[in-house]
């Protein structure tokens, strides 16, 4: 039975699992344990599950804005990689199309920049 095309993927999974298990385990044995309040808060930008203020209250959405901007570039990269790989196979048409695509993404970026989406405070 030949698993050849999938063997590296299984290897990658095994490597990733081993790395995370090792990191968590090593930190547990080797690292210092000084708990404070910040360590128990929701990661990055989640809403504190309790106690919740009456009527919902307010919470900062700065991280959400950054995350949305990140997704814009994330999607761009997803399309850039296959294009880079097959660059030689595509004539000048492919290059022009890609420039147009990048321009469209930068329009969104310009909008976010000019309207203050990048200002932290």
């Amino acid at each position, binding site marked *: 039975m030949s698993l050849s095309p999938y063997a590296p993927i299984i290897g990658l999974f095994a490597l990733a699992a081993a790395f995370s298990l090792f990191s968590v385990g090593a930190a547990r044995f080797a690292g210092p344990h000084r708990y404070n309040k910040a360590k128990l808060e929701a990661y990055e930008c989640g809403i504190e599950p309790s106690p919740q203020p009456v009527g919902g209250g307010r919470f900062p959405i700065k991280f959400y804005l950054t995350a949305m901007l990140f997704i814009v570039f994330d999607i761009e990269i997803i399309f850039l990689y296959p294009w880079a790989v*097959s660059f030689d*196979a*595509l*004539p000048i048409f492919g290059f022009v199309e890609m420039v147009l695509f990048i321009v469209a993404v930068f*329009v969104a970026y*310009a*909008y976010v*920049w*000019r*309207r203050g989406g990048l200002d932290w405070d």
Partner: protein
Amino acid sequence: MTELKLPSLDYAALAPILIMLGAALVGVLVEAFVPRRSRHVVQLTLALLAVLAALTMVVLNADDRLITAGQAISVDGPTLFLQGAILVLAAMALLLIGDRSVERGGAFVAQAAVTAESADDRRQAEGRNGLTEIYPLTTFAIGGMLIFVAANDLLTMFIALEVFSLPLYLLCALARRRRLLSQEAAMKYFLLGAYASAFFLFGVALIYGFTSGIPGRGAGVDFSTINAAVTESPTSPVLLFAGMALLAIGLLFKAAAAPFHVWTPDVYQGAPTPVTGFMAACTKVAAFGALLRVFHVAFAGAAWDFTPVLGAVAVLTMLVGAVLAVTQTDIKRLLAYSSIANAGYLLVGVLSPSRDGLSGTMFYLVAYGFSVLAAFAVVTLVRDADGEATHLSRWAGLGRRSPFYAGLFTFILLAFAGIPLTSGFTSKFAIFGPALDGGQAWLVIAGVLTSMVLAFPYLRVVVMMWLSEPGESTPTVTVPGGLTSAALMIGVLATLVLGVAPAPLLDLATGAADFVR
């Protein structure tokens, strides 16, 4: 490395789509770089010019009958006719959206993120600023609709569906007043729309699986492959039926047909009235354009199977729309149920496979679009200190207060009721005639009966406006500025002209009623 084969692109045929999407990008740049004071004028001018340019290209392309962009886009008679219809109606909607004389600062909120009903919110309702992002959003939506009616495969159709739906969800949330209602509308529309999109996509997957059964031909979701699979595939049609049903659910949701209509009244009521008009006119055209193409081109060979099901949906839609319209007390909800009933009549047209049936459906879409935009234009005018007075009781005696606008609204309502000499009569005739010829008498009987039921709520509004004494709570009609007046007049005149002399447009529709395959 394998040589990649590039699809050929006919830029002239794609020009209307490219112009609208390009204009939307420029609109976003305007938002970023033009000072706030002049944005409104610049954006409105840009959007209207783009619509005009795209319409010019549609007219120049009028004789195109081709499939381009690697089987993804078909530019043929129905595409061009419906694209033209969308652009004309969208221009009217843009006039309503851009009006700032009826309400100070326009019908749109300045900052949508302010908590509804708070002191800040009340302050901004009185302010003179309004969002100008609405113009790029509307332009994107128009661009998506142009692709939607031209899509020649299901994936392109899905992308187009999202391109025009996402801006609409946002636009629904931006009403200047009654913010909670507006946000509720956007939320409901978004959640149910996402749900319907999932159905559509699942349907596409099943259809793809079905097409893989044809011997000697690759699987695919372009319409000619599906059409070939429907007639030739030796495999069991279970996948086809399931896929077709899921696909129809996704499309009928956008078309607001029962039982997928439940979002319509809430969304029509909560959205800013110009956006409601835009949805009632342009989204209808786009949704039915797609339904026509999917069922006349892709699934034409299965007509025997889907006709009874879609026919039942059509009858149910007419019944639900007509009966529930009778009980409504809010003018926007009344118009929403009327739009549901009209979706039922349009479905009768979709089920007439003849050339006359197709041209009748396209004619109906245009005629209804003009009337419904004019109707919502009048709704924006009847207002008091808190914004639009949409409760029907407030309209009592309006005929005494402002006979001119009440007269116009009466004329539009009579057109909806299908009185002769209005476009409502000729368009119903254009749809029911071919259905009768096609042997769908049961649909026509249901259509005529529900039209009679539906005439009651319309006439009740007319009677209230003219035969009641104006009370203290009767609002006055705001005299509109140039933009809303222009949209209103275009709508009323088109309703009259299409009622008295429908032949030119009907001939145009008949000449265009032929799909490329």
